[in-house]
């Protein structure tokens, strides 16, 4: 299973430094959350990991190989991403869409493999979309589209899951349910996960490790138990944040 090694990574957008000299290592079975203010660079960081964006300095190693030296297709077998914008609503069916997830893997040229069909169907079932299989994507609701995007990612079966705002468009019940299902699947497959989100409580509930992006390109990296504190969060978001304990969870809220 894959390890991701981010070495002295520097990312800049329009001369603004989003992260400077970021170092961290992500092992299998680890779940990371990525927090920071709007425009702090969460999406940019995720995009740089799939070569959608140029890395200004530093390098990203996937199992010891610089991703710059990997073909896009090889990369896509190991790293999958859920985009913030989700899936475009076009008149293609739900099943056709989830089958796209199999693209990075060896497929026969014209006919679909039984195995790929089976994986795609399982992914649909996980997110309770099996009854919508034949529906055109442009007739789905926002929440259904988001579940479809997650099913597509599951069908891709990467070893590292990057999630950009996975709770977008989902009601509270679905947020918890889908993230539980997804983190279970990730654990089952001995994969790892990085989740960019604005929901601190969702992050602290589902992730053990954190990258907290601060103003000016600094970042705090470590265990949630160490880094996820009122003081650090207040600094990162530039507004006072407090917490309360409720049962086994700790809940954060703006003071």
């Amino acid at each position, binding site marked *: 299973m894959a390890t991701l090694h981010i070495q002295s990574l520097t990312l800049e957008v329009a001369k603004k430094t989003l992260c400077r000299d970021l170092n961290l290592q992500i092992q299998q079975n680890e779940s990371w959350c990525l927090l920071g203010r709007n425009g702090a660079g969460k999406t940019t960081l995720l995009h740089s990991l799939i070569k959608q964006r140029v890395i200004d300095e530093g390098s990203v190693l996937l199992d010891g190989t610089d991703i710059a030296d990997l073909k896009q297709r090889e990369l896509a077998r190991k790293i999958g991403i859920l985009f913030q914008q989700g899936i475009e609503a076009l008149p293609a069916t739900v099943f056709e869409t989830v089958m796209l997830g199999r*693209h990075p893997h060896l497929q026969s040229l014209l006919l679909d493999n039984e195995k790929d*069909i089976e994986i795609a169907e399982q992914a649909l079932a996980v997110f309770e979309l099996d009854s919508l299989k034949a529906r055109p994507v442009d007739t789905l609701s926002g929440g259904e589209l988001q579940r479809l995007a997650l099913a597509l990612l599951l069908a891709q079966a990467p070893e590292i899951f990057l999630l950009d705002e996975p709770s977008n468009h989902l009601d509270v019940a679905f947020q918890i349910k889908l993230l539980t299902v997804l983190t279970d699947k990730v654990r089952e497959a001995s994969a790892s996960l990085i989740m960019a989100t604005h929901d601190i409580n969702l992050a602290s509930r589902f992730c053990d490790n954190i990258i907290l992006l601060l103003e000016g390109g600094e970042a705090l990296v470590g265990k949630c138990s160490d880094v996820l504190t009122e003081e650090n969060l207040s600094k990162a978001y530039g507004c006072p944040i407090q917490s309360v304990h409720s049962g086994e969870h700790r809940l954060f809220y703006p003071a």
Partner: protein
Amino acid sequence: MISNKQILLLTSLLIFSAASILFSLLSGSVDITLAEIAGSILSAETNLNSQVLHQIRIPRIQAAFVTGGLLALSGAIMQVLLRNPLADPYILGISGGAAVGALSAILLGASGFWLSNAAFAGALFSIFLVFGIANKFGDWSVTRLLLTGVVVSAGWGAVINILLTTSSTNNVQSMLFWLMGDLSQSRVNLAHYLLLIAGLAGGLLLSRSLNVFIRGELLAVSLGVNVQALRLLLFFSASVFTATAVTIAGSVGFVGLIVPHMLRLLGARDHRFLIPSCILLGGSFLVLADSLARTIVAPQQLPVGVVTAVIGVPAFILILRSTIRK
């Protein structure tokens, strides 16, 4: 997944292609029967009718089919590349460049070989002009490519108008036929067939990547498609198909725009079906249109480009209506 609907569609298109070719063999100012067609293809006997078949109708059908196939294929590719349903083979100014080449050749009194070469040279020049300008700053975005193409196209339009307004009446007649698309002088050779076959094979090889690409560039990157390389390949292949088609027949309108749309409306969204379907329907549509072009007002001939619009517009509206009702 392959659905029965898609197999049915592909089979119907094969039958439609065969029927359009047969119809075209049978239509014309000289009456030739089915038996005579079979006879003249099977035996080496040369009479007047077999000469009409071998020297006029068959070459013209071949030219129509290859041109229509190339145009529809190019249109489908341009629509994916530019992510724009209004895209057609001519949107990036290739036909404009070819037209300026061809019209200049007509003005200088050239025809046949030199006319074709001038058109092809004009098309190539336009391809590199558009690509060069759009590519100037390194990363060529689709929007910049589209805008550059439309502007260059408008520029060619102005030059075409200058040539038309300053030419003699005789020349203007030939120029208008070229501009509307005309198959009466068209001949294809082995190279044209090979290009069409290469287009089919290449299109099928890339069809899965196209299926991903049309769903958005970000998604395509994340699913392992080399988007930069794919875009370049699509741009240059569609350009070469268009340049070749206009060199054969002038700028026949409409085929490249509506054939891919018709097929998508009929359910061939998956490029594994859309690519072969485009070649079949584009080819047979132009064969049919050309048979009408040379018979409707016989012994006069219409430019085939007029006929493609006359039968294409109502056919497209009918299909659009019937799919909306569902």
